[in-house]
């Protein structure tokens, strides 16, 4: 046993309070069949040290809540994580988080616990969700030993599903922002991107209701069907 112990990553060191907070995190709820409007959603965006799914790290988390059909400015989440080992990489030019900002950040354990308490049992939304889901899962596992099982819906899929008339394919967040003439502050900042994604989602929820997609579960089902069709080989 001890022979393999070194192969496993060291168990994260949590103090008693942190242990208790971890234990008290609510289980994710399954997507409901209630009205879309009554679902609380967390829209998240991460800035990472790079695009490598296995090596790069989460540097900051920005999130906003959509509740009662609106973005609630009293529930904003924004943390920069302390990552002393992060090397200066070209991605700093994109997210603008310099070494000093990262050094001044929060302890990742605290930040991630804060974030999961903020998420609660709500489903998550992100643009290009698989990337955020993967990076966040890894960070939670490394820092907290926590397994993320919350539903994660990809806004990059929902948008073309509900707006097939939009003349853009394989679009990025910028393209959709432009398509809907959204006025976004400083892009490539986790918080601003999360807000832009949330504004996009508000429009998409409105479209969903027009298309009689009335529940979170229905949205999820339609999304799965759409993705299967997209992946089916076309002749």
């Amino acid at each position, binding site marked *: 046993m001890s022979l393999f112990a070194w192969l496993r990553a060291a168990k994260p060191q949590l103090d008693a309070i942190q242990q208790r907070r971890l234990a008290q995190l609510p289980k994710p709820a399954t997507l409901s069949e209630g009205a879309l409007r*009554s679902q*609380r959603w967390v829209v998240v965006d991460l800035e990472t040290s790079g695009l490598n799914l296995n090596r790069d790290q989460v540097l900051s988390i*920005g999130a*906003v809540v959509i*509740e*009662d*059909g*609106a*973005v*609630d*400015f*009293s529930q*904003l989440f*924004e943390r920069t994580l302390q990552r002393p080992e992060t090397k200066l990489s070209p991605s700093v030019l994109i997210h603008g988080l310099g070494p000093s900002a990262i050094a001044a950040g929060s302890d990742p354990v605290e930040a991630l616990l804060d974030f999961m308490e903020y998420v*609660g*049992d709500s489903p998550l939304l992100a643009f290009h969700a698989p990337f955020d889901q993967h990076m966040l899962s890894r960070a939670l596992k490394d820092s907290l030993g926590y397994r993320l099982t919350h539903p994660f819906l990809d806004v990059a899929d929902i948008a073309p599903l509900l707006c097939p008339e939009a003349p853009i394919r394989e679009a990025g967040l910028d393209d959709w922002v432009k398509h*809907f*003439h*959204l*006025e976004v*502050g*400083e892009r490539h*900042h986790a*918080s*601003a991107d*999360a*807000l832009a994604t*949330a*504004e996009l989602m*508000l*429009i998409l*929820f*409105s*479209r969903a209701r*027009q298309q009689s997609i009335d529940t979170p579960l229905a949205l999820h089902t339609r999304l799965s069907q759409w993705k299967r069709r997209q992946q089916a080989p076309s002749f």
Partner: protein
Amino acid sequence: MQLDNDKKTAVTVMSKADAFAQAGKTAVLQNIQGTLQFLQRFPPFNQMENAHLAFLVEQCQLRFYAPGDSILKPSGGPVEHFYIVKQGRVIGERPDTTETTFEITTGECFPLAALLGERATRTEHKAAEDTFCLQLNKPAFIKLFALSSPFRDFALRGVSSLLDQVNQQVQQKAVETLGTQYSLNTRLGELAMRHPVTCNPHTPLREAVTLMHEQQVGSIVIVDDNKAPLGIFTLRDLRHVVAGGVSDFSQAIDAHMTQAPFFLTPDHSAFDAAIAMTERHIAHVCLVKDQRLCGVVSERDLFSLQRVDLVHLARTIRNAPRIDNLVAIRGEIGQLVERMLAHGASSTQITHIITLLNDHTVCRVIELSLAEKGDPGVPFSWLCFGSEGRREQTLYTDQDNGILFEAKDASEAAAIRGRLLPLAQHINQSLALCGFSLCKGNIMAGNPELCLSRAEWARRFAAFIREATPENLLGSSIYFDLRVVWGDEQGCEVLRQGILDQVADNRLFQRMLAENALRQRPPVGRFRDFVLTRKGGEKATLDLKVQGLTPFVDGARLLALANGIHANNTLERLRQLVVKEVIEPLDGAAYEEAYHFIQQTRMQQHQLQSRENQPYSNRVDPDSLNHLDRRILRESLRQAQRLQSSLTLRYQL
């Protein structure tokens, strides 16, 4: 887990009680900051403290509305939220019509009246396009209302507080280019720097003149033991003394001074002094406080303000030896107005000055005509109507005038008319030479129908009120603003009293006037910002006079006539209507400011056109205005709309 919305609101407000303190201390969240910066582009948010603004944003929810989505409606009960349009456009629809009554765009907010009145909105608010609104709950709105005075001002006064900003801007500009001392609003106390030169009434002439010479002043004020001014002696008076052949300069000065000199207080403005000098043909104004002389302001003191062109002009006009001279002077009036506008004078000050100078010109033309044609030997009064009657002239006006005289009966009236008409026609032609274009509708004293005895005028006016034909209604809107420019004013006042008595008694006529006042609809709503008229291939524009000012002028006239108010001037009418409690003080102030702003914009247009040698026009392209001016113009037009809807209500139209 979904909390009841109200409960959640209450909880957030409580937990955010110290949000200001926090906002200052902790780094402000990126998205709060971003939204803050967005709001700071728009009034009143640009005037609010950061902490208050941060509180506002933190309490907000951001909502999306697809085109046609209803945001607020009359059936929704008392309004529970304050909305700021972050992006998109919201339109208002009255329940009885589908006509758009207003539009609200980026950076603007709603529904203030309903929120403050704790009632439902009267208008359905709908999204006209993809629209995002920041929604603030009522408890937070109330708290902000209590904390932030710019926000409170805005919520209570709406446009009016915006107009203050424009005025500040205008004055700021004037101050930047001229320095504070060059303002027409300068207190006279600040202008009269020197101690006044005085003497007692028994001082010999020689001694007084020596004193003036030593002190290098043009006037000496004669005071009693308590320093109360008894008279003034100026260089002009000295000229009279010398020309009059007085050789004994040991005579006491009180025999030669001008008694009871005109005075103002040190708190009056340079503008007041300039007007007084122009009206009274004097060059010195005493400043008196608590009955004691404390200074003298001379024409030359005002000259240092480059202002007395006004006094100088008025004097040149009154002394012009020939019509040709008056023609030449007209050009100078244009330059004066241009300078005053550039120096931040208000449209009210400018119309006042133009009216004054025009009155002087008319008087001088009449005097010169009398001298040239000979006195007809019948006393008469020269009347003016329309904008001239209301003292609201701009530089570009037609003649609207008539003659009033007294006659025993119809045959005497006809005889007098026969004597006055050639003179009147001569005056009309001379005025035309001086730049008062001949009236296309022939509303001129030289027209036999407008050279009438008092009885004839009274009959004519009574017919206007009795038979409300379209022509008569139009006539009343011109003639009922009558005023005497030259001659005795008594007859005119009797006529006016007659009009007021008859209109007060005639509800039907009032109703017709009200309908008439609703003809010109201010161009707001329906179209994006303004409803614009497109003429041929020209760019869409709006008519500031007809679509902007006329609703105020017509509305104020109707209410003034119906409520026994003698004043002619639209702003004066509005003020007196407030005093008589016919309109609310807040509404009165809002109308006044809106009227004022539209007039100011119109004059700036005229000046621009004259500088660029373009034909003069009241049409403006709103796109050519800056963001703030444009928005205020729109709000001002909305005030015109409000005045009209109050008439609709009052007269149940």
